[in-house]
């Protein structure tokens, strides 16, 4: 058995999706995987040496971003024309190259990650060209991606219909959350397995389930800033409170590529991007509360319901309580509530998020309960062993 992975992000250590993909690739026996990567030329993934033996071909991905959203007829017409041109002219050569590579590698199955319009447009044809069973993986709802990339309504309808057809013909589907798995099974009749970023058990920490010290409060934040409105409310609430919670001086410790807005230098400790093991160590040893913003916007309802922030497993491994600042219908909110691993702040406003901090600082029993819940949740759901079981079921091993 040999699986061809069709992806837009290769297994890599500096991109969130790349880290999870690498974890999944490691679950496949040596010699049974090849990768065809349609990669955004602006990305510079750092490849893992332990996966260097995997045959991989990288081709450039066509631009997927339609610049300048607007309602003017000229703009709409040009967006439709550009997207239709990509659909008609740029996909077929990519499909041919993928099929050729798959045949060279004697692939017996196709594992395709359906992230973005290019991958959705290619996947069905590549599976058909190879004549092999299709296994699909979804990180985020396609509707959100198309909207974020300014794809016009006409092409959006075509792509969503194609996405539906692709999911229906898949023999299995790897999803970003439990809710996505439930929904896709119901909608497409395809067996679905939630596969979420996981960590080695040895990286997990078990700090004492209480605040680190009496004088200050460190709020940790790792990964990408994809909920800026929510973040801004946190920063504003802390500013209104004079950067203190219950008399404790607040320090915001950020691990990621971007420096966050709205935090004065004396209250910010920007650590930059850190490897996962180091990130867990820092979050566990130098932070009290781990902050996870998630969008409340009406346009992001589907994303909140179906996606799962990959920073949550990292936070859980750190063993500190999570302050989840997102809507109650988010799959992550439901998960954290079920596992008693985080405080759910259900309103976006400044007073609500500050109230969450206040609860975690003032209520020691709550803090202890949520910290222990986080540690248990990690071991139950996010170890590499769990991931490996799910990946092997997904790929038919």
């Amino acid at each position, binding site marked *: 058995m040999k699986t061809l992975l069709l992806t837009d992000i290769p297994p890599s250590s500096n991109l969130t999706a790349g880290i999870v993909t690498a974890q999944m690739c490691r679950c496949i026996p040596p010699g049974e995987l090849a990768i065809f990567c349609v990669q955004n030329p602006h990305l510079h993934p750092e490849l893992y040496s332990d996966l260097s033996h995997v045959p991989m071909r990288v081709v450039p991905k066509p631009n997927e971003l339609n610049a300048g959203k607007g309602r003017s007829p000229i703009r709409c017409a040009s967006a439709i024309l550009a997207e239709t041109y990509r659909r008609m002219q740029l996909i077929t050569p990519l499909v041919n190259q993928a099929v050729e590579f798959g045949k060279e590698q004697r692939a017996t199955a196709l594992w395709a990650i359906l992230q973005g319009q290019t991958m959705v447009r290619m996947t069905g044809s590549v599976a058909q060209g190879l004549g092999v069973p299709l296994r699909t993986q979804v990180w985020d709802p396609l509707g959100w991606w198309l909207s974020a990339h300014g794809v016009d309504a006409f092409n959006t309808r075509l792509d969503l219909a194609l996405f539906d057809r692709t999911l229906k013909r898949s023999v299995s589907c790897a999803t970003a959350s439990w809710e996505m798995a439930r929904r896709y099974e119901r909608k497409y009749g395809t067996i679905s397995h939630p596969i979420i970023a996981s960590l080695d058990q040895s990286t997990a920490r078990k700090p004492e389930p209480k605040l680190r010290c009496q004088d200050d409060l460190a709020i940790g934040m790792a990964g990408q800033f994809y909920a800026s409105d929510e973040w801004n409310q946190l920063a504003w*609430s802390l500013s*209104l*409170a*004079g950067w*203190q*919670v219950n008399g404790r001086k607040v320090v915001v410790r950020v691990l990621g590529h971007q420096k966050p807005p709205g935090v004065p230098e004396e209250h910010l400790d920007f650590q930059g991007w850190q490897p996962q093991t180091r990130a867990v160590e820092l979050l566990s040893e130098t932070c009290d509360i781990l902050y996870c913003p998630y969008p409340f916007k009406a346009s992001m309802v589907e994303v909140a319901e179906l996606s799962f922030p990959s920073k949550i497993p990292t936070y859980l491994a750190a063993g500190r309580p999570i302050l989840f600042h997102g809507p109650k219908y988010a799959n992550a909110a439901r998960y954290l509530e079920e596992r008693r691993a985080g405080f759910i702040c259900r*309103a976006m*406003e*400044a*007073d*609500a998020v*500050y*109230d969450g901090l*206040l*609860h975690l600082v*003032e*209520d020691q029993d709550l803090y202890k309960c949520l910290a222990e819940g986080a540690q248990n949740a990690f071991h139950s759901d996010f170890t590499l062993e769990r991931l490996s079981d799910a990946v092997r079921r997904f790929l038919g091993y």
Partner: protein
Amino acid sequence: MRELLAAEGVSSHHLVWNKLSESRSSTRLFSIPGSRLLTKTLGRFERAMSVHSRLQPSSFSIPFHRAFRDADVVHYHIIHDGYFGLNALPLLSRLKPTIWTWHDPWPMTGHCIYPLDCARWKVGCGDCPRLDLPFSMRRDRSSEEFRWKQRVVGKVQLDIVVASNHMRKMAEASPIARDKRVHVIPFGLDLEKFSPEGKDAARRRLGILPNRLVIGVRAFFSSPFKGFEFVVEALRGLGKLNVPITILTTHDKGQLNEFIGTHQIVDLGWVNDDSVMLDAFKAADLFVMPSTAEAFGMMAIEAMACGKPVIVFDGTSLSEITCAPEIGLSVPMGNSTALRDAIRHLVENKSERQFRGAAGRKLAEERYDDRLFARRLAELYRFVTADSRGRQ
């Protein structure tokens, strides 16, 4: 209310502008195709012309409703919200005995819902000092509108219901209500639902921190009548207290952000869920309702029924319905310092909170039981019907 009236031997049917329930005992008032669009369009025209509830013709279709035809008496509520044309009232009152509950003083003024400290409504309005008050006017037609209301109400054989003596006194002073029968029937509420039990569970559901003293406030910043600005001013001066405070607000969010970091702020926002509203009353230790104008004050009796002391301003119906100063705590109108002192006094005196809370509950049981409300209404309906037959 329907069940409670039925228990008093009165069957009732509601004709409503917006039907929110599935109940078959309520029907949309105007179901003629296009009537909503017409109402909306005429509403815009009315605003442009600085008139209100004057041009809507749909009200003349009410006699065609079966429920209207079958009724012995018709009771009108909140018909000044823009969908009803008051010009239809004389006709409607000739067809059926008519009762109209005045939920606020708008029927007595040239345009405003509450005249606040202006007394021109007693002399025919005109030269209006507050055209901005709802229902606002672009140009001053308050005198003309006043005369029009006076003509319409004068032609109507009408029994007026108000919920407080405060409103009765206004009606007695009003040239528009002259020679009309005015009945005082305080509103009622379900005293089993609004009860002092369940405080701890309500606090857990609302996320209130343990060991906090909870001040309930209606944060209605956009209303010129609710006096929220005085609460903000009072809270600013509150200083250090002997107990940590939670301020629990409903209606507008984010109005107490300046107190983040000083007190726990729980903003519930606009609450449509009755159970959340009930939790808010149950969770509070005291309720601050400094309205600068109020015809009754439903939230005050809801708080009292839940055993909470209420702080109000003098000069509205609230001091009457909360029985201040014996039960409710009233302070001079618009005086933030006095409001601050009253809040501090109740925060620091647990026994007084308990005493006033228990007395408020007892008052609610005596005066504001919805069964009593239904009984009084049933008596009025019988009286009005008999009186109408007697006149015929």
